[in-house]
């Protein structure tokens, strides 16, 4: 682990709960060169502020988390993408938002910036005047001449995110797949800056609705870590329940979409109904069907009494009651056989991309952020095949797991306060939460109670590249089924 020793040898700044090592540029370059020897060292996120670039690395199994930073010199920093191809989207994002160049990077095309913003590099200390005209996104050249190009999106009519997917077809088979995101960029990193965590939480909750609780929670925990605030036990218990409820709701939604994509409308209906009961229970319990704005830094915004807990129990009970029927439908439908062997992610790719969530665990990657934070005896369900069927089966298993966790949590809900006030002090923190689609990370630095810099890492950063790779060789008509099996969301990546 030479890369790890290089990082560890560098001095560190205080960041809770993991220190952030500050590397000199030559040491960062040496670390980047050593990365190919350390396949177990996964790059989870790469982001920036106006003066530094930061990396978050994770040794799976050992659950060792390492943070490293380098100063931007003469507008650039040594790229990590030659060693970790997954870094390319991060490097392009950093360039589009801050103007820092990744020296030696494998891809320097624009990413979030489609040439439509009023400024280039809107987050840089001095945004340069716009010099590029609006241009349509450029795509990789076709691998060879026999490849026909099939563009999909950004308007798909599928009640879904806006994204663009370009398929290169060899007859019926997909020879090349490239996703182009950035359409949903709402400028969230800029909106977070200079705000108090409580105010900023409204934007965080709207990064990606499928993980509104997970993002709000990771963000809140990062702020609480930075400020050394302890959240009341009642809020901690309720937050965990909300996270599991969100997981169930999203898994049911994903299963419904997978079912619809392969023509198993019975499966879709069997998911939609219990999901609706759950959402109504959540509305009665927390005041919002998706639990948006309920988790705030310091605790919870909602007041949850006995009547609310009872409504929550009813919603969860409806899912538990419907689950056997849903499983029967799934087994009886042509769904799983159809999905077998489709969109396979090999374990090595899952590792390289730091692929988390159902998609990572379906490829045997034993990582679940719930392993990180006090859930005694928690064992994540695993699959090995790495295909769409494995991802689908895992979702059902995880609903069962979440129902078990909820039963335990509902058994004893501590009494007491729902939230504590946050002090107006400075500090830095990072936190991780397992969302339905994988690990959500939030880092932030507070300056006298206001956000100086922040970055949210959505699971989508790993899911999209994994999907691109998994489409290779598939029949074009299977595209929707493969996409659905990953549960892709662009909003969280587009910021």
């Amino acid at each position: 682990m030479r890369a790890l020793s290089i990082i560890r040898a560098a001095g560190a700044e205080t960041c809770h709960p993991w220190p952030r090592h500050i590397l000199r540029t030559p040491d960062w370059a040496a670390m980047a060169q050593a990365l190919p020897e350390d396949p177990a060292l996964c790059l989870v996120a790469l982001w920036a502020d106006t003066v530094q670039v930061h990396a978050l690395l994770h040794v799976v199994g050992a659950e060792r988390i390492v943070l490293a930073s380098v100063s931007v010199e003469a507008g650039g920093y040594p790229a990590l993408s030659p060693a970790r191809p997954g870094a390319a989207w991060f490097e392009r994002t950093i360039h589009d938002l801050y103007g820092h160049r990744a020296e030696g990077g494998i891809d320097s095309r624009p990413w979030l910036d489609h040439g439509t913003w009023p400024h280039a590099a809107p987050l840089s200390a001095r945004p340069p005047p716009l010099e590029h005209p609006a241009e349509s996104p450029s795509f990789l050249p076709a691998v060879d001449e026999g490849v026909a190009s099939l563009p999909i999106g950004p308007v798909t009519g599928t009640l879904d995110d806006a994204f663009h997917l370009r398929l290169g077809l060899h007859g019926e088979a997909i020879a090349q797949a490239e996703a182009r995101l950035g359409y949903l960029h709402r400028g969230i990193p800029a909106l977070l800056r200079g705000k108090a965590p409580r105010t900023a939480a409204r934007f965080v909750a709207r990064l990606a609705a499928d993980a509104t609780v997970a993002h709000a929670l990771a963000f809140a925990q990062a702020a609480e870590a930075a400020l050394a605030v302890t959240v009341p036990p009642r809020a901690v218990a309720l937050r965990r329940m909300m996270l599991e409820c969100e997981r169930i709701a999203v898994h049911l939604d994903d299963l419904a979409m997978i079912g619809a994509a392969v023509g198993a409308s019975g499966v879709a209906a069997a998911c939609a109904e219990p999901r609706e009961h759950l959402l109504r229970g959540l509305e009665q319990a927390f005041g919002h069907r998706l639990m948006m704005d309920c988790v705030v830094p310091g605790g919870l915004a909602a007041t949850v009494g006995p009547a609310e807990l009872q409504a929550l129990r009813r919603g969860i009970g409806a899912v538990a009651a419907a689950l056997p029927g849903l499983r029967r439908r799934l087994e009886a439908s042509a769904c799983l056989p159809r999905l077998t062997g489709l969109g396979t992610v090999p374990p090595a790719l899952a590792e390289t991309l730091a692929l988390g969530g159902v998609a990572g665990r379906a490829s045997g990657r034993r990582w679940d952020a719930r392993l990180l934070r006090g859930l005694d005896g928690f064992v994540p369900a695993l699959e090995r095949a790495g295909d769409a069927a494995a991802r689908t089966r895992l979702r059902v298993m995880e609903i069962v797991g979440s129902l078990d966790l909820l039963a335990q949590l509902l058994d004893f809900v501590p009494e007491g306060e729902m939230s504590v006030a946050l002090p107006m002090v400075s500090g830095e923190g990072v936190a991780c939460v397992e969302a339905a689609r994988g690990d959500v990370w939030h880092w932030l630095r507070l300056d006298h109670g206001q956000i100086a810099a922040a970055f949210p890492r959505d699971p989508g950063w790993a899911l999209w590249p994994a999907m691109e790779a998994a489409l290779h060789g598939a029949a074009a008509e299977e595209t929707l089924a493969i996409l659905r099996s990953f549960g892709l969301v662009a909003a969280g990546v587009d910021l």
Partner: protein
Amino acid sequence: MIGRFWKPRAADPLPPPDEDTTRSLLERLDSAAQMRLGRSLALLHVNGGSCGGCEMELRALRGVLYDLERFGLRFVTAPAQADVLLVTGALTRTLRVALEQAWDATPDPKWVVAVGDCAVDGGVFKGSYAILGGAGAVVPVDLTISGCPPSPVRLLSGLRALLEANAR
């Protein structure tokens, strides 16, 4: 042809969604549809920069009311087939062209519904460099359905208003 019956950026024109259940609403919709419906409405969703919450509730509407078609409403996937564009999101600058193209490709008569607070006026993202502040910045909006996100019941009352106007 039916004129535009709500001005762009109008405040939420719907009665408070106090219906207890979707069912009671459905019954009303059913009779309205049977009595006065001229033809069914084809809905095309256009994402204008959403967090995905409005889409979740649109999917919930479609999922629970799988017989939506009985009430004269159906989802389509191409502008050429659409009567109504359901626009979500704060309208990012990058999606402006996509919305314009979808609108141009939708045959007349057509309606635009701004779904969710973001599409109504930019919602929480108002003032960001990356957004234009809702569907009305680019296309004429006929109906707004507020909420963040609007619940299926609220979506349905909005669409019912559109159906009734269509049948008038």
